[in-house]
């Protein structure tokens, strides 16, 4: 196995993989539909054929063949063939200032995602919500993983961000009977949208003070219920705010959360959280988690560390909430309840504690599983929890725990083994 699958690809740099994936999705764009028809599938399989396989078992071979022909084979061929040019290019790129290779890789990734998603609006929607899930999961991991608390307030932070951003955009740019006439022209909107998100994030941070300040004196279980109380309070507060229409929810948000916007924000979020957890504050967070008293003795300002972590995590949850509201173009308070909490917790612990990689993997896999298993209807909610339990039993800290994103190492070309020695 190893000889055939691992070794030939061991020297492929990230650049090569991205190029391979890009070629594969471009191929799907060009030849996906006719190939699908030729294989007896009526349309391009939307999520790697899962939905088709579960709905019509007779089509399993065709779906598998499609995935092999469109995704697996081209990616494998291209990456294998491009090893040496990709490595040379990567080596050349990393010598340039850091920003350039990063931009190139991100550009390739975005191009691949964009081409993949463009085939169907359903893919775009799933992709957007997945990226938002990545943001929320990461920001929760800062508290639940890096700081080692069990915080239940994240949906509350999301709700604050979502409502603030919605009030901002709906109030200023949409003619709405609740906020009066349009104040600003639509054309300004996309430029002011980031401001709405950032302000929403700040407001969520401000709300987080309600959880952060008690955290000075208490920890663990007691903090867990403080954060749970916070969640209930936020939900109840919004239900009682008549000007955002209470439980009936707020709709009519302008369609500004496009795929590039969401992608950019996600990249920003991953980048800043990754830097945060690798910084001194991040290490201090781990110290506070492992032993607060010892951390204090080692001159870690535990209060400052805790409050910074809470505010930072809440900020990103708030931004994610704002994007979420503009993707759905509707928010209501009951979206941000216990159900959402269970979902986000599952993503964090499935992916892996204390890990940027893990959060990304957890959020992506649970979001995609949730969509791919749709045809199972009720049984979906038996299969997914079972899978999670199995992961927890065999890998109690999650799939990929304790692993940050080392960007420099990621971008490096892969040398031949003898060169390394």
């Amino acid at each position, binding site marked *: 196995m190893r000889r055939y699958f691992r070794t030939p690809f061991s020297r492929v740099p990230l650049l090569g993989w991205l190029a391979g994936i890009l070629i594969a999705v471009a191929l799907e764009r060009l*030849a996906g539909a006719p190939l699908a028809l030729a294989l007896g599938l009526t349309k391009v399989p939307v999520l790697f054929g899962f939905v088709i396989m579960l709905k019509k078992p007779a089509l399993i071979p065709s779906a598998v063949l499609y995935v092999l022909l469109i995704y697996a084979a081209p990616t494998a061929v291209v990456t294998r063939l491009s090893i040496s040019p990709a490595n040379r290019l990567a080596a050349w790129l990393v010598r340039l200032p850091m920003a350039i290779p990063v931009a190139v890789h991100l550009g390739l990734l975005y191009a691949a995602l964009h081409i993949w998603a463009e085939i*169907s*609006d359903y893919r775009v*929607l799933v992709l957007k919500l997945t990226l938002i899930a990545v943001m929320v999961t990461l920001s929760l991991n800062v508290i639940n993983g890096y700081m080692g608390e069990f915080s239940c307030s994240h949906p509350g932070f999301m709700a604050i961000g979502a409502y603030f951003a919605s009030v901002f955009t709906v109030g200023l740019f949409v003619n709405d009977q609740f906020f009066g006439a349009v104040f600003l022209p639509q054309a300004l909107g996309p430029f002011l949208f980031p401001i709405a998100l950032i302000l929403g994030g700040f407001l969520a941070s401000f709300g987080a003070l309600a959880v952060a300040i008690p955290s000075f004196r208490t920890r663990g279980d007691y903090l867990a219920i403080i954060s749970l109380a916070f969640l209930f309070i936020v939900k109840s507060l919004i239900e009682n705010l008549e000007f955002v229409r209470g439980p009936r929810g707020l709709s009519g948000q302008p369609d500004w959360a496009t795929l590039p916007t969401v992608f950019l924000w996600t990249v920003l979020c991953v980048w800043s959280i990754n830097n945060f957890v690798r910084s001194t504050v991040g290490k201090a967070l781990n110290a506070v988690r492992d032993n607060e008293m010892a951390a204090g003795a080692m001159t870690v300002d535990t209060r400052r560390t805790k409050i910074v972590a809470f505010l930072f995590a809440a900020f990103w949850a708030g931004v994610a909430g704002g994007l979420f509201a503009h993707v*759905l173009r509707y928010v209501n308070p009951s979206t941000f309840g216990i159900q959402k909490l269970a979902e986000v917790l599952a993503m964090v612990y499935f992916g892996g504690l204390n890990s940027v990689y893990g959060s990304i993997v957890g959020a992506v896999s649970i979001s995609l599983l949730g969509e791919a298993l*749709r045809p199972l209807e009720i049984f979906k909610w038996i299969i997914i929890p079972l899978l999670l339990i199995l992961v927890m039993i065999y890998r109690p800290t999650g799939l990929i725990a304790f692993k940050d994103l080392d960007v420099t190492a990621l971008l490096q070309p892969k040398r031949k083994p003898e060169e390394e020695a």
Partner: protein
Amino acid sequence: MRTRSLVGVFVLAGFLAFVPSGWVQAQTIKIGINAPLTGDIPKVGEGTKFAAQMWLEDVKAAGGLTVGGKKVPVELVIEDNESKAESAVKAATKMITEDEVLVMVGPQASKQAIPAGGIANNYKTPMVTPWSTNPDATKDRPYVFRACFLDPFQGPVLANFITEQFKFAKAAVLYDVASDYPKGLAEFFKMAWERLHGPGSVVAYESFTTKDTDFSSQLTKIKNSGAQVLFTPQYYNEVALIVQQAHQLGWKNPIVGSDSWGSAETVSLCGKDCYGLFFSTHYAAAGATGATKEFIIRYQRKHGYVPDDVAALTWDAMGLVQKAIQDTGGLTGDLKKDRDNVRSALSQIKNFKGITGDMTFSGGGDPSKCAVIVQISDKGEFEFYKSACP
């Protein structure tokens, strides 16, 4: 060798790109059902699904839907929206763009129908929500329709009925603050009542939160407020608890409800406590005649219980869709054009004889429809009392 295989791949890709994509398929009509099969209100999802499947059986038995003189097979695309707004949006997007449904029926609850309606309208796909009574679901959305009446109509109907029937002047309201339907209706009722009896005539306006089961504190307040009647626009599972607890706390005045009471389970859960109470609804199961009765009997035989209003309204929504498709006079095969045709046919439907009453659309998405006041008899059956038309 390497370059040769690379060239091979591209040549293959090029060939595939030129395979003619105008593949002729057997034409079928796909109808999407967006229902909450899991989540908070699985019962609603079940009723939707069963009613839609019963409709499909009928169509299949007839050998397909007769459109423009041709029999066209019909297929249902049932998706679970988990009773969540985001999942309803995903399901709607999926069935519209991937499964290419001609019409979407559902979602039921307003909190899913409002965002999903936005999607349907964006993709210019007609959507019929059987049960969502929130005005926002269809407002400014030419492609979204509903099969029920609206809260602003039902609130005054009930206020007028109570005033005429009992000659009361002081009312109390108990509703779920976290759920949009009860909250909306409670507000419209309060408005209508205060218009009739002057400000302050709603002497107690109390609320609770979804999933609560104890209402004793609120009911104690209501009882001591001097209210003569209690209006509670709640779902049937809560109705049973509210009525029983009110009686246990010594409340002896009438309790009046809204269309959400109209489920067979109201009586089976509530028992004797609910006998003699009035509520407004879409149809009365006990006094039913003709097609309504036929539907009830069939449903009960198949699934073991009397269908509730969701099932009946879904049945009517399917009927509306069927009529609209047939009214188009034939499918062109071009999905976009067909969807437009169905939309304009829907908005033109006049005097549709549904099992929940006659419906007439006049250009917009909301039917004009009569409400029925029903009394729960001493045998636990819903008896027709009077009807109120707009």
